[in-house]
């Protein structure tokens, strides 16, 4: 089971609540960094990324209306690899190949059933390691 850090801006708040409950039902521990829902995506995503960097959890989920803003903010953190995803296949592959510690979701882009499977897959999938590590080392030297 994973320890999942979650956060959302105002427009992602409702999907965040839904996914928080879904992940808890699956048995994951969930830490909600934005219980109030009054932040913009820069602020909400920073809270998630900083919690990951502080090792408060091992997977981060940042939600806004499109996922685009949270994706940028996540990746502007050194040592964070954040994937913008709208399908469970990418969610699996980005754990497997990129060792992404965060995903960004758009509440206006994905329906709830797709979002459930994305976070379920992300919480469960493990990094494959091997040849992929050189690319991770390169990304982690950046910014």
């Amino acid at each position, binding site marked *: 089971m994973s320890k999942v850090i979650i956060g959302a801006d105002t427009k992602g708040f409702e999907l965040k609540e839904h996914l928080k409950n879904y992940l808890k039902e699956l048995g994951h521990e969930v830490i909600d960094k934005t219980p109030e829902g009054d932040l913009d995506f820069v602020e909400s995503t920073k809270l998630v990324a900083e919690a990951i960097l502080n090792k408060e959890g091992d997977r981060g989920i940042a939600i806004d209306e*499109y996922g685009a803003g949270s994706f940028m903010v996540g990746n502007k953190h050194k040592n964070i690899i954040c994937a*913008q995803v709208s399908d469970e296949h*990418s969610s699996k*592959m980005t754990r497997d190949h990129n060792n992404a510690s965060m995903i960004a979701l758009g509440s206006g882009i994905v329906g709830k059933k797709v979002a459930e499977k994305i976070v379920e897959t992300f919480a469960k999938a493990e990094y494959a390691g091997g040849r992929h590590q*050189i690319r991770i080392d390169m990304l982690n030297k950046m910014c």
Partner: protein
Amino acid sequence: MKISIGCDHIVTDIKNHIGKYLESKGHEVIDNGTYDHERTHYPIYGKKTAAKVVNKEADLGIVICGTGVGITTSATKIKGIRATLVRDVETVRYAREELNVNVIGIGGRICGVGLIENIIDVFLETKYKETPENKALIEKIDAMIEDNEQANDETMFDEFIEKWNNGGYPAE
């Protein structure tokens, strides 16, 4: 427009298709590689593609790898790049109009070429519409990376490539 493009070895064919598509629409293409299917590493090409954009040699950038995640992440880690990794037309429209993104990433093993072409069309034809709200968000995003010379540091990844060449990473 001048468009900077880059890819990893998994999706070189799709990058080539995009290059031809852009040229057929009258755009100038800067192809940063990779140019074949020999195994290489996406951050090299994400960074090169992004550098052309921040150096104003290109107007916009397009990066592709299998899922798009790796190469788009590497582009986003360059100061001055605002990138979005898209699988639908509406996200690119929003990201260009509201967040003035200058790079898009696409997963070549996720999206088909018809969808990719439509995404590119909307990326190129949509204009940023400045508002006080989105300007403030963009300034906050841009301020997150300190000024650095990473975009133009061509030796930045040498230590890892040397380690790779010396068998320091597993082959599988």
